[in-house]
């Protein structure tokens, strides 16, 4: 069972501002999903190694060669707020009066 408080805490971690209706809905739906998912708790997995991916390549290296990159202007072209060179964000550090 996931309480409404837990949903709100998790939503905060995930940077989601949920409406009250969403909190209620997700609390019910996630509780029922986790009840179903709890069947994996019955597995004895003590001696089993976890799999991130069955075919993963480890430590892929490449030669350290300088190659042309995209221009600054191109990279910021999709930003919702930009001066053409930078990503504009609200002030992060509060200034003293």
């Amino acid at each position: 069972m996931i309480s409404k408080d837990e949903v709100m805490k998790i939503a905060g971690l995930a940077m989601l501002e949920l409406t009250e209706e969403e909190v209620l809905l997700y609390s019910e739906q996630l509780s029922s999903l986790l009840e179903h998912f709890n069947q994996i708790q019955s597995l004895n997995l003590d001696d089993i190694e976890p799999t991130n991916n069955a075919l993963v390549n480890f430590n892929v290296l490449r030669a350290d060669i300088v190659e042309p990159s995209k221009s600054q202007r191109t990279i910021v072209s999709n930003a919702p707020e930009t001066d053409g060179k930078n990503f504009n964000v609200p002030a992060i550090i509060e200034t003293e009066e």
Partner: protein
Amino acid sequence: MTEKYKKYNDINELPLHYKPAHVIRTMLDSRQISPEEIKTETLKRIAKIDNKINSFLRLCDINNDSGEKNAFWLNIPIALKDNIATKNIITTAGSRILENHIPIFDATVTKKLKDQNAFIVGKTNLDEFAMGSSTENSAFKKTVNPWDYSCVPGGSSGGSAAAVASGMAYMALGSDTGGSIRQPAALCGVCGMKPTYGRVSRYGLIAFASSLDQIGPFTRDAVDMAHALDAISGHDSKDSTSSDSAVDNYSAAALKGYDFKNLKIGIPEQYFTGGIDAGVLNRVEAAIEEFKKLGATVVKVSLPNSKYAIPVYYLIATAEASSNLARFDGVKYGFRAPEYKNLKEMYMKTREAGFGAEVKRRIILGTYALSSGYYDAYYKKAQKARTLICQDFENAFKKVDVILTPVTPSTAFKFNEKTSDPLAMYMSDIFTISINLASIPAMSIPCGLSENMPVGLQILGNYFQEAKMLAIAAEFQKHTDHHLCMPAI
């Protein structure tokens, strides 16, 4: 009453829009049709029927003449799922948060098809960030099933499946994280393949769950599938998880076919018990009988940990998704909420307004599974159970060449039938998700109809055995006509 579908006796009887790409290739090469004609005919068909089917989010006219002159896909109309980056052409992943996103580079698969000078007709609809099994989670439109407009096309690559099934593209690319190519292929009556993880570069695919995502094609038959895989496979230095193992000549393998006397098929008992509609079971069993008649040996195999696949998959996929989707914060690209007091509020309001309900549900589930206190009980356990699921397949493939199963427990379901119950929607992936967890390749091919709706047969292969699977599928289609059955549109 007009017929809902038509079964054609052979390939030559098919109308132009339903012909396989390899027939179009021959017609183009022998000048029975010009590149302009095939382009015009396809655009006419889209103009005529896509207002009903709603496969495309937008049309684009990519056909630069600088491509390779002998390429298979030269001038053949194809489509791309809208989570595959196309340079200078809006790519949304079906999400409001990327509504106006214009990629500054091409995905590797886009580049490879451009290099062949394929005619890229448009970008197709999908569940938001490829999360869903019906394409109903798209922020933009509802794609219908070409066989019955009151039914979903499946998902998440529903737009790509419907475009190929209704004759608006000769091939389309999709992405498959838990069945998002194979399930809509089955429900729309076309072929769909998820290659081995790493066979196709994911560079430029908007990430959902990075250890499970794989790009693959939708086509009308196995020979076209082989040509599509020839075009998009191979190592890519831009995707460090792409495999550098040798790429087979898939079209040569498919054209050669397969001697079924040397074919050993495995049938996993766990995929044939309970929960499957009788009509689907009946068609899949009939297809297995056809393999037997053609000389194949059928043996039982066991995949005992399949029953854990739904929880394992949804814990891992949502955990990875919650991490991948953290980048959508209203700073670097996409939508930003108009009103906020500070940076944190800007993040929260942007994500609340930009993401749809299913995406938020999965972000919360994934964040929960990764949060301290639950990490060991859910995420880590799921990763360990994933090992067991991989081992099941490794053991099974010691005994057999391929495994045959259903793709879906039912044919296409109605709109809104499963949207209010996430678990019911997740259960529709029960036969496809283990394959992504194990990283093996699998394809869906049409195997007949149940109550006038298509049924898919799933062919599972061992790692990097796509050539063998395609040869087997092509041989099967030489002797059967399920793939020549088309919706009457």
